[in-house]
């Protein structure tokens, strides 16, 4: 962790650069971060941003707690889980949203399957990357509207294997994220059907940035500075998607050709607290979390001063 | 390959008790291996009752010098004996009777259910001997079979062997380092030389049979024979301590 005395120790007169350690997923959601690093925008703002890819949201949450990271880019569902279980963290920014015009997650079934809409998945086996995450939540919400949200077997299958699992008949459907969704679109053996996401709304928060409270109170200035600079990149990515597509291959295993083709999420730095509350509510209804954290607990700065 | 045996040539007659003595490393074990068909001599041949030996023949048993290693530790004493009787097509009772007899004759009647490693060295050696006896061979090859046995057991076993030899007319080739033993047991004693190995002398033993541990060994004939062999061995070696 570099957070300790990184900013205060630089007592030299020259414009001190602040060191920021941030961990993220290697997915398209955090492309704006890499844009900022690549273009030098963070440096111009006097920030030295060090981004590392991490295996899971849980690992990042732990590294955050241990002071090895200052910020972490994780999924909203992970953040809600962690905060509700008492992990000391708060959401400080939103990055990406799933919308009907940005379907970066889709449901894939076998070509020969007669399943067309989500409600038909009742009693079936469905693959998703990690259990109890946003797609899982959307699926259950949709099923709950017409019947029993528990009446489905959701199993965890790594994204690269999901389409193969559908083709082999080991699952009835798979909720496939990008970039594998783009590959699935080109696969003649499978077919896309209704996505589970819209059941959660038209503007579903996905990627968020979190930090730990003691860092935020000790380093409020740097945090604000970083979030401002990052916010500009997020807005820029939404305006100019080509920039995001260019940054992706450098930080992930996605090939440039695929990066040019894949569906990107909507990038927006403005936290939509309504979708956070709704997801938290739903998760607690499903029993995934034992208590619903309030917005004040979840989002930094939302508590009245 | 080194030539372990060279110019060793002798005949064993049916029913004879032949003892072989000679310095360590001169090839006594190798000789028995050729006789038993475990090893083919590079030149020359081993004949058993007129037929050439290339595979171990049916009617031959061998008591190995390294008796601890030749007993199978995962089998009991009974199991070790039973194993060599498997091909005989005998009934269970018959097998049990044979084994009990053989064990009793080496004084191990009570140890059938023990594993070899539960016995002292001398007892293991006796199990190996019992295994050879139960096999009921026509030819019995023994490689220093009494080396680890205490004096008293040793003389008992020597007498047992003489009895078996007398009763069943088994041909015995018996390797030993103990010249007293060779003279006491044998019809003839073959003395092998240092390497290059050759037959140094063949000493006929004309002591009367049946022999007796005390009376035979007190006979002046016996004393002279053993002194003769001993003197022979001592003179043979020009370099007294170069053994191997």
């Amino acid at each position: 962790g570099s957070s300790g005395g990184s900013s205060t120790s630089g007592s030299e007169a020259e414009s001190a650069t602040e060191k920021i350690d941030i961990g993220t997923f290697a997915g398209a959601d955090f492309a704006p971060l890499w844009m900022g690093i690549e273009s030098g925008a963070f440096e111009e703002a006097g920030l030295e941003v060090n981004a590392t890819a991490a295996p899971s949201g849980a690992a990042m949450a732990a590294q955050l707690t241990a002071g090895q990271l200052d910020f972490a880019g994780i999924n909203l569902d992970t953040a809600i889980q962690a905060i509700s279980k008492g992990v000391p963290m708060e959401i400080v920014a939103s990055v990406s949203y799933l919308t009907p015009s940005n379907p970066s997650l889709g449901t894939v079934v076998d070509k020969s399957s007669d399943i067309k809409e989500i409600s038909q998945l009742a009693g079936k086996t469905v693959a998703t990357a990690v259990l109890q995450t946003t797609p899982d939540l959307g699926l259950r919400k949709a099923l709950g509207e017409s019947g029993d949200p528990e009446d489905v077997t959701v199993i965890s299958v790594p994204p690269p294997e999901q389409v193969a699992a559908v083709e082999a008949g080991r699952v009835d459907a798979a909720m496939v994220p990008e970039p594998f969704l783009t590959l699935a679109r080109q696969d003649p053996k499978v077919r896309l059907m209704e996505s589970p996401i819209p059941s959660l709304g038209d503007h579903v928060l996905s990627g968020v940035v979190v930090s730990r409270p003691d860092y935020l109170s000790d380093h409020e200035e740097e945090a604000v500075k970083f979030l401002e600079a990052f916010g500009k990149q997020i807005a820029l990515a939404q305006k100019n998607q080509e920039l995001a597509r260019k940054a992706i291959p450098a930080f992930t295993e996605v090939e440039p050709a695929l990066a040019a083709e894949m569906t990107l999420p909507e990038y927006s730095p403005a936290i939509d607290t309504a979708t956070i509350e709704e997801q938290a509510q739903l998760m607690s209804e499903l029993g995934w979390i034992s208590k619903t954290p309030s917005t004040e607990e979840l989002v930094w700065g939302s508590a009245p001063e | 390959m080194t030539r372990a045996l060279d110019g060793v040539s002798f005949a064993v007659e049916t029913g004879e008790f032949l003892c072989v003595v000679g310095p360590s490393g001169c090839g006594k074990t190798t000789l028995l291996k050729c006789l038993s068909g475990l090893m083919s001599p590079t030149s020359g041949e081993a004949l058993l009752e007129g037929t050439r030996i290339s595979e171990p023949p049916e009617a031959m048993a061998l008591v190995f010098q390294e008796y601890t290693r030749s007993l199978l530790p995962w089998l009991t004493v009974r199991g070790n004996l039973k194993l060599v009787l498997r091909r005989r097509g005998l009934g269970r009772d018959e097998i049990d009777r044979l084994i009990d007899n053989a064990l009793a004759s080496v004084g191990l009647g009570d140890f059938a259910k023990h594993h070899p490693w539960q016995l002292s060295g001398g007892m293991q050696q006796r199990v190996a001997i019992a295994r050879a006896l139960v096999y009921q061979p026509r030819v019995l090859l023994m490689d220093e079979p009494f080396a680890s046995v205490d004096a008293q057991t040793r003389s008992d076993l020597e007498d047992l062997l003489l009895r078996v030899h007398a009763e069943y007319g088994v041909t015995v080739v018996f390797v030993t380092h103990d010249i007293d033993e060779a003279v006491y047991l044998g019809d003839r004693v073959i003395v092998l030389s240092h390497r290059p190995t050759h037959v140094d002398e063949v000493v006929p033993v004309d002591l009367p049979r049946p022999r007796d541990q005390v009376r035979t060994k007190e006979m002046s004939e016996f004393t002279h024979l053993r002194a003769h062999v001993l003197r022979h061995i001592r003179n043979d070696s020009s370099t007294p301590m170069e053994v191997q």
Partner: protein
Amino acid sequence: MNAFKRLRNFAMEIWLPLVLFAAWWVLSADSQSVYFPPLEQILTAFREAWLFAGVGSELVPSLTRFVAGLAIAIVVGVSLGVALGSAPPLRRATMPMIEFMRAIPAPAVLPAMIAVLGFGNSMKIVLIAFGCVWPILLNTIDGVRSVDPLQLDFARVYRLSRRDRMLSLVIPAASPRIFAGLRIALALGLIVMVISEILGSSNGLGFVIIQAQQTFAIPQMWAGILVLGIVGFTVNSAFLIVERRALRWYHGWRGSQVADAPG
């Protein structure tokens, strides 16, 4: 007469685990850390998840795959090992390839296995078998090779049948080595079982642990680790019992051995 002595022996073996357990309980009692919850919470989670709700849904699938993989490894390893051990040219020809395959860390093969066999049970069983087979195979070869030549001579002189020679001599003689290989295989097998469940599974112990970790159910994660400890201990104890019975002769023999000339 011996009751007191036995009690003392038992106390001797059990006092340290008890002290450590108590220390854990006391030291963690008012832990505020999310990641190191009080032992009491862990035990509660253990009771809720594993007595006996999770046994059928998680433990049984894990152990079934483990046993199946191990069984395949034993059958393949021993039979191939006996064949190669008694055919020197074949052994020399295949040895480099076997050594190479053995050297591949089993987790590294996982992606390839997933690509070919998917993420189902067959993949995990094959992977466990792959992880376990090498120590068994190599030790069997070694065991067969190191059968005392004198004993083979014995078999020839006393004209044992081929069957007797294999079943009463070669395999028993190799069995201590085979069990030594099995012991290493068990440890590797458990590792492979867990890793295959962490990366791509929908049930099993490894899955439960990683899932608990990902949903911040930390007491449940600790409970899962505890279960693995119990499973490992049980598997190991079962192995020791079987080994002790099968190799009773060997331990006695070794213990009694007044060394012959070595080598």
